[in-house]
């Protein structure tokens, strides 16, 4: 006999497949962009800005070596700083959601707080991807 201590929340938060009526509702993990640029706390803003611009993105997620989310650089922050380190400019501790959260729940939050994007993470804070408002709109939740 085995006891899965983390339970259903741990399973869903890891973005693993599930069954049931909610399985057909679009969720955060379905539209999160895995290829979002990332950077470290001590990188100089100039280098990060150039690297992100080359990818065509206007956001960058700040992570540690284990890809745990530490902060966020949105378009506004990406324009700031030159030799300053990322940690001086970033938005620390951004609001995040788990992959299993239904898209319409996330959209309500993003609209209420006027957020253009938000990171999606596992329950231990590891980056899964970034959700953008336009991606939610195209999914049919808007």
């Amino acid at each position, binding site marked *: 006999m085995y*006891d*899965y201590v983390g339970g259903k929340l741990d399973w869903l938060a890891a973005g693993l497949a599930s069954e049931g009526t909610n399985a057909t509702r679009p969720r955060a993990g379905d539209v999160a962009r895995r290829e979002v640029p990332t950077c470290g706390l001590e990188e100089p803003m100039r280098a990060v800005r150039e690297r992100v611009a080359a990818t065509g993105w206007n956001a960058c997620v700040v992570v540690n070596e284990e890809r745990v989310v530490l902060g966020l650089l949105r378009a506004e922050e990406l324009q700031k700083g030159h030799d300053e380190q990322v940690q001086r400019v970033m938005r620390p501790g951004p609001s995040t959601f788990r992959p299993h959260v239904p898209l319409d729940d996330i959209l309500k939050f993003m609209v209420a707080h006027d957020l253009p994007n938000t990171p999606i993470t596992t329950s231990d804070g590891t980056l899964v991807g970034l959700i953008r408002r336009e991606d939610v709109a195209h999914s049919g939740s808007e």
Partner: protein
Amino acid sequence: MPQEIDRMHVQRLMREGAQVVEVLPREEFEQDHLPGAISLPLRSLETEARGKLDSARPILVYCWDTA
């Protein structure tokens, strides 16, 4: 006393054919459950387990979280 396991161990047991049991209320099971899981709500566990589970195979139970 059940052996406490993590997600990776769960996935291995599932591949090996373990019986996966969710003990939450039936309505919650219907919304979301692990692939292949069966519903045995806690309140009816004692009365229904004998008829639904194979004692010769490993049994894995789970709830919502660690609470």
